[in-house]
Every structure is written in structure tokens, then in C-alpha cells.
């Protein structure tokens, strides 16, 4: 339960501390670059997720962890 509390507090702090950070829309040139997108290599991540799901005990994190495959 303490782990969960820690998570909730962290998320709340993050959200509240976030309002002062950031950029104006015309300052998004670098962030708009293809390699700066969060999911810029979706295929690679999907392949990796599948490999590691079938070889290790953990899954998910960046997205849903459901396997959709019988390998674990």
C-alpha cells in the first residue's frame, strides 16, 4: 500500500508542478522532429514488447501490457 501512496503522491506533485514548464507553439520546432515523437518507432517497440513479454515476467509500462499471445 505504501508503494501505491508513493505513486499517487508523485503523480499529483508532477501534475501540479507542471504548469510553469513548457514552450510556446512556435517553439515546438525541435519537438516536432520525427525522432522526438514519443512513439516514433512504434513497430520496433511492439516487436520488443512481444519478445520481452515472452522471455521475461514483466510487460507494459509505456502502454497496455496485455499480450494477446499465448507465449506467457
Amino acid at each position: 500500500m505504501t508503494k501505491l501512496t508513493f505513486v499517487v503522491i508523485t503523480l499529483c506533485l508532477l501534475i501540479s508542478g507542471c504548469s510553469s514548464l513548457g514552450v510556446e507553439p512556435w517553439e515546438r520546432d525541435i519537438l516536432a522532429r520525427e525522432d522526438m515523437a514519443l512513439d516514433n518507432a512504434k513497430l520496433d517497440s511492439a516487436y520488443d514488447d512481444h519478445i520481452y513479454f515472452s522471455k521475461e515476467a514483466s510487460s507494459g509500462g509505456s502502454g497496455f501490457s496485455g499480450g494477446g499471445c499465448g507465449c506467457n
Partner: protein
Amino acid sequence: MQLTTAQVKPSKKSKHKNIRQLLKTATGCLLGATAAAQADSKESFFSGWETDIAILGYTEVDRVSAIEPVVQTQKSFDDDSVLGFKLVVDSLTGASPNGASPSDQVQTFTRPSGNGSYQTPAGETPLDDSFLDTRVSFSSFYEHGLGRMDKMIWGGNVSKEYDFFSAGLSATYVHDLNNRNTSLSLGVSGEYDFIEPVGGIPIPLTQMQAASSPQTKGEGSDTRFLGEVLIGVTQIIDRKTLVVVNYGYSQSDGYHNDPYKVTSVVDDNSGSLVQGESLSGTYLYDSRPDQRIKHSLYSKVKRAFGEDSADLSYRYMWDDWGITSHTFNLSYRKNYNAWYIEPRVRYYTQGEADFYYHSVTESQSENIGSYLTSDYRLAEMWSSTIGLKVGFKTPDGNQNSIRLEYYHQDGEKNPSNAVGVQKNYDLFPTLDAFIVQYTYSF
């Protein structure tokens, strides 16, 4: 991008006339036929799809090999909605550890079908080579705006292989704030799995029987349901930096045993085989709780360094089976004018499940409790991956990439509780694998 208003139906009582059509006609006259022709080229539904085709080759030294071709495509429409589809085919061959431990004698195991058997020489990790499986999976997603600062992403997927079927749905709500510098997301997903193992569902903790004897199998199939909630915050820090933090909770209920895995029961003193009911050794079928609750905390930082960029992430996972894990991933992309190179490293470590045993002694097996597994994937282990990806454009102007990776997995090869002859053997099936992937985008 969000619009102040999307297509809003005009109210009957609006005091403004719609002058757009008149204006279009006037403009058409002014700019002439050339302009009108350009303006009229409305995109059809079938044009404008961004497609990737890729193929992955995976091969483990002396064990499993797989080939996995994938086609995925998506399109952004004028109203900023996005529709995507993905088809995956994956074909596996090779041998996989069946959970039993190496012994000083030859070991005989029965194939999952109950017909036929296979043998493992003394001193080797028992591998079941009955694996020959092809899986086909189809998934789709649809993303659309709900208002200026909100959007929904809907997802669905279906997957089928010889002994397994799964269907799932997901919905994620995303809300932007702080001038779109912050993004909050809340997603839920549900997945239904139908497991129909070759030869039927083995009765947990019973002994594997020889092929010539009646098998201790129960029903032909079983099911499992997985529900997940994922909460995330994405924050732009500055012009070059982006951070994500996610928390995920997942709960699965139903059949979790691995129907193809067993645990070796060894002699208390010699560590050698114990005569089974019909086989020369005693092997107990896998047994796991019918619920698993997992929590994950994930964070990632993406930062630009001049023309290049780096991606660092960490995931912490813990569950109610006693497993905790840490995953670190770092990649650095060096961008050149027409190509890029991206080295990557990953380091993973996990603790063992409460009911994991590399093997059990005869006296232990009498008091084992309800759960028991020797699946190396629930053991204490660590792994590292190093990889290199190169991206480049072909003369047709389309993007290609090639990725090569080496994966090494290791665990407790010589645990302190190894008994007798077991001390001479590796009790964790070390894994070395090579991955090659080629992607073409158009």
C-alpha cells in the same frame, strides 16, 4: 492540432448567412480554372495512408527461432482523426525449456499431445521441441478529438494461434493543458484469453505420465480475463526535452498455469531422478494462482542534443506473485542528413516468484502447497540487450531501417540449495539470442 470548432451544424435561427459558397464562386472567377482545379482535388479515403512493412528474425542459440512479418498502416483525416490497422504473423519453431532440471541420467518426457516422447541426454537442460506454432494477430485503433483539448483513442485486437485465442478492447482519454505542454491520459483495457493446450489442460501438481499410460489431463480448455488501467502524464520541459510518467495497474483472473511446463522432483541426497508413476523421473505439472495483480511505474525522458536525440526510460514493476523487476533502456540517435544511426542498450533484472523453484526435493514435494513453477521466466534473472539501428532513404524517397540486436539472459546457475549431482549443472537455462529487423515505410 485542435480546432476552435469542428464542423458545427448551423442553427436555423442563426443571424449570419453562410457566405462560403458565394465566396468560393467569386474566388473561382478571380483565380480562374487553374485554381479551381487545384482546389477541387479532394482526397479519397484510399489515398494518404502511411504504411510500414517490416520483418523480424529472432533466433536463440540452440533453442527457439521465429520470423515475424508485420504490416501496419494509418491515416490522418481532415478532421484530425486517425485510423490505423495492423496485421502480425509470427511463426515459431525450435525447442524451449520445459522447466525440468538437468540430471546425471537420460530423461524421458512425454509430448504435450500425449502421443510420443522425447529424451534429454545427461547433463543437458531439457528442451521440448514440439514447438511449431504460427500466430496471426489483427489490431486496429481510432483516435478522434472530443473538444479542443481532449481526445479519445479506441483500440481493438484479436489474436489466434494453434492453442490460444485472445480478443481485447481499450479506450484511452487524453486531456491537454498548460497551452498543450501537459497531457494527462487515462486508459482502460480488457482482454479475454481462451487457452486450449495441445493434449488438454494438465491437472496441476500431478505427475507427467509416460506416453503409453493414460494422461492426467482435465478439461480441453480454460479461460482468463485481463483488465488494466493506465494513467499517464506527459510534460514538455523545454524546447528540447519531454518527460512521460505512467502508472499501470493490471489484474488478471483465470488460468495462468503454463500447460507445457513441469518441475523436477529430485532425490533429497543425490539430487538425481526419483522414479515416477510411469516415467523414470518425477515431474509435476505447473501450478500458479488464478489471479495476478501487477503494478508498474514507468518514466521516460526524451531529449534533443543538437541534431541528435536521446531516449532514456526506467520501469519498476511489482506484483502479488512476489516478483519485482527493473528495466532500464537507453538509446541515442545520431542524425545525419540522409540517414541516422541509433545504438541502444537495455538492462533488465527481476526477482523470483514466491512459488518458483528450480526443482524440488522429494521431501519438499510432500509439503509444497498449492503453487509451484520452474518456468525460468518467473525465476530470479537479469538480461541485457545491445543493439544498433540504421535508418536511410532508398532512391524512391522512402524510409528504411535495419536493426540488429543481441540479447543475453542469465540467472542463478549454481544456486546454494542445489542438491548432490545438481551442483554439476547449470540450473538456469542461459539464453543468447540474435534479432534482425528490416522496416520499410511508404
